[in-house]
């Protein structure tokens, strides 16, 4: 049982494991609440002159923070078509982090109890095992994004809100960029020998990418922004956030090549990270 068939069987097994436990569903419900709160706040912030954040204390704080960090332009863009773009990020980010973290913990748990070794000496190679976990993560994210989109669609119909083209585009972009983030989760899982170590490594890498990327957008201090811009120029070729921004900008200004370049970039870096993860795993295999 090797290659494609092995991957398929193992992916199905991992998915079954995940869907039989309540953790995924609880995380999905909590993340959706995170997404719904901004929608509720947005509706409460609508007056006769339009969207007025000062009408809702929660939104007043959120928009004030975003404006001071990134400028008013970002807030205008974020809420130009309604609350769902912001709500999507609020719901998607915690869920993605949960899925990646749970996958890393599962990997180390199964490794510690000898399940991976057993499988490796049996019909499946470790790279097949890695790939199956990666596919499980992707399927979980797609299932969650589908559920979230349906939920937001119904909420939008109930409240006469518009999901908007930017929301639809972002759903597709986030689904694509999840591929790269899941690949980083796999690399982090293979890179260290303990679950806590892998989880920390994954979070540190993601937070670093986020800080460098976000830093180049901040208006707080010229120095921070300049340093971030230089760092961002170096690390952006590996950063999922850079590719997300690139694809979204391409969609906004209707530049086909920018979109294609962004998606290709995600796929190429994913392949690269995937190869490094598999190489690390095989290297460990040889040592053991």
């Amino acid at each position, binding site marked *: 049982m090797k290659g494609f068939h092995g991957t398929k069987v193992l992916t199905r097994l991992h998915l079954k494991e995940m869907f039989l436990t309540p953790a995924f569903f609880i995380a999905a419900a909590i993340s959706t609440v995170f997404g719904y709160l901004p929608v509720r706040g947005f509706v409460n912030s609508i007056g006769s002159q339009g969207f007025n954040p000062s009408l809702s204390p929660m939104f007043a704080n959120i928009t004030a923070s975003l404006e001071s960090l990134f400028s008013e332009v970002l807030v205008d863009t974020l809420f130009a*078509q*309604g609350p769902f773009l912001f709500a999507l990020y609020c719901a998607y980010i915690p869920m993605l982090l949960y899925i990646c973290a749970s996958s890393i913990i599962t990997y180390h748990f199964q490794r510690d109890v000898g399940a991976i070794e057993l499988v490796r000496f049996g019909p499946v190679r470790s790279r097949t095992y890695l790939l199956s976990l990666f596919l499980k993560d992707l399927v979980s994210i797609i299932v969650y994004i589908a559920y979230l989109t349906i939920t937001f669609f119904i909420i939008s119909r109930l409240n*006469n809100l518009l999901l908007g083209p930017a929301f639809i585009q972002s759903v597709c972009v986030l689904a694509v960029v999840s591929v790269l983030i899941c690949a980083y989760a796999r690399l982090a899982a293979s890179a260290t020998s303990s679950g806590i170590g892998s989880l920390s490594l994954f979070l540190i890498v993601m937070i670093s990418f986020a800080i460098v990327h976000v830093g180049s957008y901040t208006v707080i201090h010229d120095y921070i922004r300049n340093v971030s811009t230089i760092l961002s120029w170096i690390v952006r070729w590996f950063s999922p956030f850079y590719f997300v921004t690139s694809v979204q900008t391409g969609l906004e200004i209707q530049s086909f090549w920018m979109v294609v370049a962004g998606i290709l970039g995600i796929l190429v870096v994913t392949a690269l990270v995937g190869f490094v993860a598999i190489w690390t795993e095989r290297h460990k295999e040889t040592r053991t």
Partner: protein
Amino acid sequence: MKRLTIILLAMLCSFSLFGEVPVRSEELLYSIAAFSGKDYALTFAKEDATTIYLYANADNFLSMKKNFIYYWPITGLWMIDDSVLDVTFDGVMQVVDSKGNVQQFEEVEYTFFNMRGTYDNNWHVKTGQEAIDEWNSYVQSYLDYQEATAAYNREYSAYQEQTTALFYEILAVREQGGDTEALLQQLSTLIPPVEPAMPSVYTVPPARIQYGYRINLGAGEYRLRFIDKDGRVMQDSEKTIVSVESRRSDSIGYEIFPADRWTMPSESFAPSSVLYVDGTSDMYVRPFYQDEFLDLQYNKMIDNQSSGNPNLYRWVRIQQVPNSSVEITTSKGVQVVNEQPFMVEQSKSTTLGYSIVPYDAQGVHAGKSPSIVALHIPLSTDDKEISLSLAGVEDSIKGSSKRIIRVITGIKGELITVLLIVIPLIVTFIVRTVRKRRLASVLVEVS
């Protein structure tokens, strides 16, 4: 001890006498009159500013100065103090492009002024003889006005003297029991002189003739330096010029005035964005042309000390669309609304509100200017969705002018929303229950 306390108290009090005095420093500055797409912004680049941002393919005016500058903590900005030191250097400005081509700029006379237009105030700049003519014309019109005012004052005094004399004459005749009819007729024929109108061509009159270097560059990055009279590059005069171009232009934005808060307009910049309103009052909109710039570059262009986001683009209002009309699509059909003048009238009731009524130039509003010239969009809570776009414009402009107005009347269907959110929990509950039952039946079978 007592003495010491008094001395300490005196010292403490003395601190309050010495407020924080801003520290001045002498600096070589670039004084900039920068075109911003719609008007001229006056700013300056300090010695430590490495870059000057200018609007591409437009006339910008730079001059090399030496002034005192000081930091003003209230605004958090550096200010110029030209009361003591104000030196403008003579020489030549050189701009070098990325290929090494050198452009040389000579000093010209210029002035700038703001004229009241039909829709927006418009800044104008004139150079050379035109600038001198404009300044002379302004000075002449001002002198004419002063002369006319003096003549008016003289005529008015004479008129007052005449009326007072006649008045006393009428009183005297009345006391004597004489006929005042002829005198009264004479009084009624006296016409007061008409006060001369102030020159209203300018909202900001032309500035006194200034000397600067007219810089007009294509989009890109350049090096700037100042060559003094001796042909040497002036120390600390080298800067980078970023000539800024808009990423997208001639898009349409809207200024939105809700009828119940017409003094608090909001703006809709993003094309195809959605305007959410509660539908409690009508809306008045004014479409305007807008261009898209990098936030940081545009901010720095109008004020070199300001900051901004270097990676985000922002829309900048350029000018109101003249004589506009919009197509409004509702569930009832399509309707074209034309631009109209309106008057804001204070309510005479005790509610102290106001109402916006169509401007009647010939009737009740004769002699007054309209409060607002806009497009009236009637709204009600029954409307769910209204879409609007500019009528009678090119397709590309029409595309960017589309907006959807959605009327939101509070949060709805919370129970359904809660059900949607708990669906994952229901699913996991069902899965666990089914598994438990299956496991129980398997255990029964095994036993």
